[in-house]
């Protein structure tokens, strides 16, 4: 087995590459694939190195090629093939394409400490959904939020709140999928309120480009209507807002 170490290592590397390339749908972006294959290469090499017998078995074929202990055609193929392969990869990497350049976009923009809504300044840290203070009326508020959602948000965020409304496909990036565990369930309601109220233009300048088509909803909806819509998107998507233990917010401010 040890004498096949080199072939096994090479075979494993190719098998992993093929798996990542072919079986991840939609295809993994090159940036992620590069991270993965770099790690896999390092892992395979370290595993081989971690045992003396394996390491010697791994080194034997390259040594044989460089020391001339293999047939001339094999030697020529390897020694000529390697630079050609490297050159080809370099060619692929450097050839200009029509693709737009990479965009280092982050999923969650950082919220400001305060923002203005309909002429009033709001501190984000102290902001909570006022409609949750009356649990008896919550179902009614959610129902009202549903109506607001279907009149305003449904077209992009969709019937199932999965970011797949009838207009969704014309946007890049797609509208947020509220059913994804990585979206609203990771955020406090105050964050969602800020995003809805200030829309795409309210995003921070620190990490542009955002390309968000989200309208500035405070221009179309009253503050309470926004809170109601937020109640609905959480209830309708089966998620709950991020919360911390009670009392900690007060501790933070002193």
């Amino acid at each position, binding site marked *: 087995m040890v004498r096949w170490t080199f072939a096994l290592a090479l075979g494993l590397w190719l098998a992993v590459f093929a798996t990542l390339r072919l079986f991840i749908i939609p*295809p*993994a*972006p090159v940036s992620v694939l590069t991270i993965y294959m770099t790690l896999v290469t390092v*892992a395979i090499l370290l595993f081989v190195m*971690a045992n003396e017998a394996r390491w010697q078995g791994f080194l034997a074929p390259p040594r044989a090629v460089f020391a001339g202990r293999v047939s001339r055609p094999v030697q020529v193929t390897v020694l000529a093939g390697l630079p050609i392969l490297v050159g080809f990869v370099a060619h692929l990497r450097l050839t200009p394409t029509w693709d*737009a350049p990479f965009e280092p976009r*982050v999923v969650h923009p950082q919220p400001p400490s305060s923002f203005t809504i309909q002429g009033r300044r709001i501190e*984000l*840290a102290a902001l909570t959904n006022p409609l949750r203070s009356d649990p008896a009326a919550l179902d009614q508020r959610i129902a009202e939020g549903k109506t607001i959602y279907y009149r305003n948000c449904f077209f992009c965020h969709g019937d199932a709140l999965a970011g797949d409304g009838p207009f969704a496909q014309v946007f890049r990036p797609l509208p947020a999928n509220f059913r994804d565990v990585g979206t609203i369930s990771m955020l406090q309601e105050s964050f969602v309120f800020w995003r809805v109220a200030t829309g795409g233009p309210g995003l921070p300048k620190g990490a542009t480009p955002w390309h968000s088509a989200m309208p500035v909803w405070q221009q179309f909806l009253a503050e309470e209507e926004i809170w109601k819509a937020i109640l609905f998107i959480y209830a309708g998507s089966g998620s709950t807002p991020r919360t911390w233990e009670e009392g900690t917010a007060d501790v933070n401010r*002193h």
Partner: protein
Amino acid sequence: MGVDGGVPASGPWLVRTITGVWKGVFKVSVMLAMTYLAAQLLSAALPAADYRSLPLLGNRTAVWIVAELHLMFAAFVLGVPIFALITEIIGMATRERRYDDLAREFTRLLAMAYTLTAVLGCVLLVLFLALYPKFTTYMSSIFKPTWLLYLVLIFGEVIVAYLYWYTWDALQGARKRWHILIGLLVNLWGTALLFVADAWVTFMMSPAGIDEANNPTSLWAAATNLTWMPINIHRLLANVAFGGAIAAAYAAFRFLAADSDEERARFDWMGYVGSFIAIGAFIPLPFAGYWLGREIYQFSEQMGVSMMGGGFSWLWILQAMIIGSLFFAANVYLWLGMGRIPGGERYTRFQVPMMLVLTLGFLVWATPRSIIATGAEMAAMGGSHHPFLGLFGVMAAKNTAVNLMILTTFLSFMLYRRGNRVPTVSWTLAGKAAQSLAILIAAGVVVGYGVYSYFVPSIVRIGFSLYQVAAVLVAMAVFVAIDIPLLKGAREIGVIRWGAIPERAQYALFFLAISFTWLMGLMGYIRSGIRQYWHIYGRVADESANAYTMTHGDATLIVSSIVVVFFLLVSAVFAMALRDGRKV
């Protein structure tokens, strides 16, 4: 410090101890006096201003470099005594002289390192006073009493540290426990210093004890702010890991430069002990990190989002790369070490599944939440969020991955420990079965909660991470509790051939030390950088020309440069200690 060994227990050693301690106190006093004079002179000579600018490097970069170097040396002088005390205690318990020699060898390095730490601290103080006078005055208005306490602690630390060194040979044998007590005092004093300094740093992140107009209301509240204790614990553990890693790297260097098999054997063993302590302290470190992260989020979601999901999130991918590589290096070092243990080959077959878990864990950990993609790739994904890979970008997956990696590394250690031993107790089979069960149950709990946490709110998910950690810690405790009686009186297949390890294993030890240092620099930058344009978050804004966040490229270049400078300085410390040692 370079004193000779075998100092008699009366007469000269006492004189030498008093002289040594006096020299240490004198040195620190001179440095502090010079700092005070320099600060006074600069304040008098420079025109009054909120900010002054330093030519060439600029204010921020200068303070950054000096502060980080100061912190690294401080970690070294706090970490090495912990490392030395642990090995000294092991030496006393096992009555093996070599542990005592190892502890002594590293304590020798402390004097020079203390001096460098103090010099860097003094330069930092002068820089603050000269470049940020308004900010420093404000901090002083809140923390002045703690500065005085800090001074007292510095002198206390110098006195006990010098006592620890100079009484080494006198307090041997029956008097060893007194020496251990001094060692404990060195560490308690060091820890107190760390805790005081952390109060200032954490106040800048999560200010407390001040009113709406920023006037101080409670010094205690300001010091014990929300992020204070998490950083204390995080840094304390990191210092032990750091001290062990530096010790291991030193041993690796000595191994590679060794002229004889005897020396190689000695330094091989030393490298193993250093790495053992480093990785032992490293294992609970991510848990302390989660706690800190959680407190940051609790204090300010804005700061938390900046850190984990916003502009700084890509630096966490770098962090994942380094920590994942650390796990790789630690395991590979142990597996290579198995080659010098007769009977170690019995466990080679476990390397395949262990490497598989480590690699998969690493892949998950390194999966970015916000993926960099071309326009075509984004169109295919429907945004920068991949519907499948995105599952690995969240904390649910990363917690699961890191817990499994920790469990695997622990298993590597345990197999290494068992390398040449065959249990002879009657309940061997049952004991091994119970150990396997403990590991499997822990892995099951980790994976189970990991998957389940995708379906629950964040606050519940965070709670799950505690169950995952608890499962891993309990499994480790159960494994060790069984292992100790299991291996009691075990038959030895052969003696460990210290020194008979491939040279490439030593590079894994260098890697450990460099990675720990790099991580400290990187994490320190993230922690400090997320304050963005605030000196004191949300309270005192940075109104200087440096009130902007650097590009990641520029920031990481500075971090890497600091690491290079630190290792150059540490090499100088080692070289001087070696020279002193040879003179003897």
